[in-house]
């Protein structure tokens, strides 16, 4: 195990009590236990409080624009088949702005981990509803409450054969560290959603609210994460009981395997020589 202070970076500027703090701690622990050094991993993020995550952790980082972390990460994957990639984004970022890229990632199955910090609210823009806000959730924009039900991202992921699907809770850091480790070690696209209370703007879905509802799916007598129908039901389950743990696993070829040229290693190390006389041959 590597020392945790190896990952020390600048001081976080999250609100006191934010669910991101225990996540950061659990993530550092996962990296240390997996012996992943800061220079051997890339974190890609976009916009939102969740996207500041990589700044507060010493590691390679690309902090891009709203909703577009997955395209950047997939570009990295296709240019460097070796580096570990973790994408850290929020519910509004990925499920709202970046929805199309999520669907494409399910299909492509690049070897990377997508961690969605789900607090069911827009924090950075101060309290508007997100795609996962519960029906009736009120905000300055939705004073009468959100008129329609939330998205069920994990059910969507299962339905689209996402090769690893899990959920953690910031209030259960030991389980979260294990989930981070499993997701990172999984070969293929792993979606790990983490319930991450926003202590300022979400007065409904609090630590206490989640704590009263979450349960470990591995403890269920019918636990069967390779069974699509079972996993779909767990992905859809939301309300009185909220499942956490590894919900779905399916072995699929990864994106990189469709690119035999990547066997030559990272593109940045290639020697490229293309004589123009050869290039012109098709045109005589």
């Amino acid at each position, binding site marked *: 195990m590597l020392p945790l202070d190896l990952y020390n970076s600048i001081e976080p500027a999250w609100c006191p009590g934010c669910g991101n703090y225990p996540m950061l701690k659990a993530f550092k622990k996962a990296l240390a236990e997996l012996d992943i050094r800061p220079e051997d991993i890339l974190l890609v993020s976009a916009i939102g409080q969740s996207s500041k995550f990589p700044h507060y952790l010493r590691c390679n980082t690309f902090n891009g624009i709203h909703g577009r972390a997955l395209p950047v990460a997939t570009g990295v994957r296709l240019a*460097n088949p070796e580096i570990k990639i973790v994408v850290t984004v929020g519910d509004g970022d990925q499920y709202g702005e970046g929805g199309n890229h999520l669907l494409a990632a399910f299909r492509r199955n690049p070897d990377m981990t997508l961690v969605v910090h789900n607090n069911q609210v827009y924090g950075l823009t101060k309290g508007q509803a997100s795609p996962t806000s519960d029906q009736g959730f009120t905000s300055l924009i939705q004073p009468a409450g959100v008129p329609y039900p939330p998205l069920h991202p994990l059910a969507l992921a299962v339905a689209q054969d996402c090769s690893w699907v899990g959920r953690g809770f910031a209030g259960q850091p030991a389980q979260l560290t294990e989930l981070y480790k499993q997701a990172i070690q999984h070969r293929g696209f792993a979606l790990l959603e983490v319930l991450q209370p926003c202590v300022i703007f979400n007065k409904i879905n609090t630590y206490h609210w989640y704590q009263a509802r979450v349960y470990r799916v591995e403890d269920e007598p019918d636990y069967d994460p390779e069974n699509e129908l079972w996993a779909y039901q767990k992905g859809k389950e939301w309300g009185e009981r909220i499942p956490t743990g590894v919900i779905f696993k399916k072995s699929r070829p990864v994106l990189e395997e469709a690119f035999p040229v990547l066997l030559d290693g990272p593109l940045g190390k290639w020697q490229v020589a293309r004589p123009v006389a050869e290039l012109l041959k098709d045109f005589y």
Partner: protein
Amino acid sequence: MATDLNILIGGAAGQGVHAITGPLAKALVRRGCQVHVSQSYQSRIRGGHLYNVLRVGDRPLLSCREGVDILVALNQETLTLHLPELSAAGMVIFDESQVKQAPEGVKALALSPDKVLPETDAGDIAVNAGACGAILGLLEVPVEGLVTLLGETFGAKGAEVADWNRRAAQHGFDLGKALGHPFSLADIAPPSEPNLLISGHEALALGALAGGLTFICGYPMTPWTSLFNAVSQRAEKWRVVVEQTEDEICAINMAIGASFAGARAMTGTSGGGFCLMTEGVGLAAMSETPVVVVVAQRPGPSTGLPTRTSQGDLAFVLSAGQDDFPRAVLAPGTPAQGYLLGAKALRLAERYQTPVFILTDQYFADAQFTYTARDFPPVGPPPASPFGASGKDYERYSLTEDGVSPRRFPGFGPEIVVADSDEHTPDGHLTEDLSVRIQMHNKRLMKLKGLYGDMGNITTMGDPAAPLVLMTWGSSSGAVAEAVARLGQSGTPARLVHLAELWPFPRRAVAEALQEAAKIVLVEGNATGQLHRLVRQETGFKADHLVVRYDGLPFTPEYILRELAPEA
């Protein structure tokens, strides 16, 4: 007297317009002729009206022109639409099984499947190969080259098809020859070195490959798609990672990700696709990630005319994205220039770690020009990257005199590489220190100075003392050059000034080129004179007259001369 023939081949999409044009053009090029092929088509897969114009002569042809000397009509619509363009000595070859009303009062050759290959199921093949053969007969060009080409092109379709093609070409040739030969090319000498025929997007693809491209991604959209195709078809042989994205937003972000990780990356799009990319353009600039974006123009706004040509996106590309940042904008005039600029764009992007644009359009994309290998010099090895400071204390955005920071790739060594779309400190982490903001903004803008020094490619042609200057940019170069030449021949000395590198604007070179002009005419494919505004902004020179075209068709020398006539 110079030989200069225009052969128009038209029909419905799917009938075989390209099946005639392709082998015919290649046969003529191999024979030693100069050929220029331009395409005009509608936004549909089958039916409608499309045509190619194959211009053939004995000296370099840099543009399409108006008029038709040989009209090949595969359907009635082609005949009706283009018969009025036929020159005095012009001739018509038509498919009589598709044409209800045979042309009257002109020399014509009727072909049909039954006539060319009776008692076979050859169908369109008979007429297509027959028409190719007939044209060669008319031009007195031996048919053997065509037969070889048809074998190369359609050989995979089996022995029977090959036999039909061979027999139809020979039969057509005999029919064409019997018509007499007012358009003989028999005097054209065989080439001393082999000629080649290449389109703008094909040449641009080769330039990018020669310049070290390792990654391309994009979403299909006309006319950009043909460039994406040209690279993708060569990707396996030359080792390029190709990915079709779910949308253009993904395309530019994916290209940025690949480049950040060490690829030499290109993406591209057209029209509304580039509207989707603009946020990513700013990301490339802010994160200082090299990326080449090809914007293949078509008339807009919005969906506009998807398959037509335009030079309407210059102002957009010059200002796409929020706030100020360094960028380069290139716009090749010919395929040969496209080859050079394809490589140069990658070099500039890599050197200055910022977005570089190549503006093309439907005419440039599709039009094929005749060259020899000498027109495609080696472009030199790609610039070294990663480069500069390394080690544990590496900072992605360390401040330097020229604004260019040492570049390292994540996962390649002990360096921690942190890139950010937020304003950031030299180590890449977000900051709200406003003095750092000023330092970083200045650092990025400093790169414009270096870029300015790397701009060139002002082409001037014609009488250097001529008081009349015709100035243009991008793919309109050939038509303007020919207009200038014709003006000179008719006693009006004129000079061409062509810009292929538009930003940072080569203001000194342009000011020098315009200094002595008594009359300045700007020629460009948009309604409001976007280059003209730029010239005024950057040099203070004002045009006396604008020649604009925005009907979706490329400039021709005739169009330009007509527009100039009232002024002269």
